[in-house]
């Protein structure tokens, strides 16, 4: 069980974006929009290439926080703002900070960035029993 302190930083996590990453996660999230698997269609629509879908941005935020907290973590919510697209051959790098711990709920601020800027910015709320407020 992990003890959380406001200000504490999560270790950085980098994930290489490949066509396989983007296509496999789009299909695994049951998102068949063509811009997530067909480069010709994505480029015709004005994109540089295919790009990561939103359900996967959420899934990766979940994974990033829970892998750090421990698998007994109970997520209460994920709130994200969407920014720069994540294209193949880029790298998606997550950083996080424990923002607050209150009434058994921790809020963890997360940013996932790519070469074009922030891909995702948001917060994850997690509840006890993983959280023990540190009283020293």
């Amino acid at each position: 069980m992990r003890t959380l302190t406001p200000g504490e930083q999560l270790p950085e996590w980098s994930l290489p974006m490949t066509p396989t990453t983007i296509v496999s996660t789009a299909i695994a999230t049951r998102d068949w929009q063509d811009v997530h698997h067909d480069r010709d269609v994505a480029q015709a629509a004005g994109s540089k290439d295919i790009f990561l879908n939103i359900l996967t941005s959420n899934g990766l935020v979940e994974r990033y926080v829970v892998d750090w907290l421990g698998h007994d973590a109970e997520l209460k919510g994920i709130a994200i703002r969407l920014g720069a697209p994540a294209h193949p051959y880029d790298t998606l790098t997550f950083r996080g900070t424990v923002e607050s711990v209150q009434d058994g709920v921790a809020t963890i601020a997360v940013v996932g960035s790519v070469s074009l800027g922030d891909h995702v910015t948001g917060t994850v709320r997690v509840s006890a029993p993983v959280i023990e407020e540190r009283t020293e």
Partner: protein
Amino acid sequence: MTGASHDEIMAEAERIQALGEASESRAPYPVNQPTIGAWLDAMGYDNDRFRTGEAPPSMAQVWTMPGLGRKRPPEDPLSRMTEFLTEAGYTAVLGTNCEQSYERYLRVGEELRVTSALDSVVGPKRTAMGEGYFVTSRNTWYVDHPDGRREAVATMLFRVLKFVPKETP
């Protein structure tokens, strides 16, 4: 730009908002282990809980995705509002915010239903992408129990920007 004026856009927004949870769809398949397993593999994520009966919370939306070649119900409030804005000249769309809340984790075998309502329409706003309206929808996922109880298990506020794309040089 052609089409509806700001007043007409806001009147349409009010009309659709007043319909409340105007559309619903059922998950085509119950919460199931193969779909969870494929999701874990694609995410490069492993977590014993999700190999033994529980589903990752951020998969809530996955269960009710319409599927290849299937459409959302025509009365879907977000679709109706975005189509109205497309007609009004705000042709481009961009997802901007997604806020999910989980009441509990789902379990393998559960059957889900999702409703959709129009939460708000705000605009016109000048953005880096172009001028547009922010359209926010609210989804609520339910599990219906044999005793008639409708249990809300997750909610999502989803916001898109419907905008007039800036001329490309």
